[in-house]
């Protein structure tokens, strides 16, 4: 079971290695906009979605990946927690 802090660290590690290689970790905050700021382009977004699905064995529906749910490490981590809880209940 991963807690919110671990999930955020997973996301941070992925983004820094795959999307922002060479970027200082200090510049990537939990509330840094990833999509609206242009950090994630189309393929970067899809890569992150695939990473999340594989890492946490969850399936994200298209409507769940809008900017409201999927723009910052904070919001993505919350979505993942919700999806994990739903998966475990099922």
């Amino acid at each position: 079971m991963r807690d919110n802090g671990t999930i955020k660290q997973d996301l941070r590690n992925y983004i820094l290695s795959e999307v922002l290689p060479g970027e200082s970790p200090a510049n990537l905050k939990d509330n840094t906009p990833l999509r609206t700021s242009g950090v994630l382009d189309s393929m970067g977004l899809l890569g992150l979605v695939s990473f999340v699905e594989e890492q946490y064995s969850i399936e994200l529906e298209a409507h769940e990946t809008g900017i409201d749910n999927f723009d910052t490490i904070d919001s993505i981590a919350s979505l993942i927690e919700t999806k994990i809880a739903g998966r475990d209940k099922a």
Partner: protein
Amino acid sequence: MTVDLTNDQEELLRAAIKFGRASLRQEPDAVRADRDILFDAEGWRKCGEFGLFKMPVPEEYGGLGLGLPEVLAVMEGLGYASADQGLLFSANAHLWTNTIPILTFGTDAQKSKYLPPLSSGEWVGANASTEPEAGSDVFAMRTRAERRGDRYVLNGAKTFVTNAPVSDLIVTYATLDPALGATGITAFLVERNTPGVNVGPHASKMGLRTSPLADVTFHDCEIPVEQRLGREGRGVQVFECAMEWERGCILANCLGVMRRQLEQVIRHAQSRQQFGKPIGKYQSIANRIVDMKLRLETCRPLIYRIGQLKQLGRNAELESALAKLYVSECYVKSSLDAIQIFGGYGYMTEQGVERDLRDAIGGTLYSGTSEIQRNIIAKRLGL
């Protein structure tokens, strides 16, 4: 760098040359067809009989199950032997942006239904992704797909759809909600005769004129959920797959054209006398021909490298962009050199030499402009 084809691949290349010379358009028919914008439906049918569209398709779906290097060798041979590159451009669009995505992302039912008629050549495949306001920025598309129960309803307009006027099956892309961005885009298989699909007239263009191209609009076009290609919201993956294959493979026939051009200019430079000697004896002419040879020899490994990578199941995004960029620009330069060496005769439409240049320029635009290829390469280099 050299390309060492296997004996089987060499044999296929020779077979393609023999078939192309016997069955596909030659001069002066190709000049007339280019002028009159005539798709070679009979040539398409013969390509189907020859097995061109079956080559990359597994045997269980009516194909030949050959590897990509073999397909590329055949395309090189056809490019060399046919004077109608528009037909081969259509064949490329059919294979890489229609057949391959179905093969890669299709359900068993979709593959069983569509691959047999596509691989026999009975059906023509098209790809509708570009929109009037979404060219290089293709994911800014406005065509909408609204889910209504067990159907999607498509509304929107696509432009520059190769093969559309003669198509039977269109792979297209629409967004469920523009606010979702890339994760809202979904791919669909749309049969041409579906109510709400409207294909415009065959548009006239600078080169590749015998390859039909038109706008396609969807007006309340109902598509069963079973016709969705891949997962909902994962159309970008389908599109990127199609583009990677197309960028890497669409210029294989141009290798054949560049070889033909080289042979033509050498013959001309040896026989054409000016100021008492063959023009090939002048360094300014000979140097152009040397450059054409160099371009051909440096282009071939880039194309066949993609065949090797895809055969190994490896990603070839970087290599496809490199090949697309370099080969398309070399093709333009060699076509310009051929015209210059032929002089006034090269400028005349009846000779067919100038047509190669018009065809070649398209290569720096379709499947992502040269600028987009450079962006892809730079990004892969970490820039």
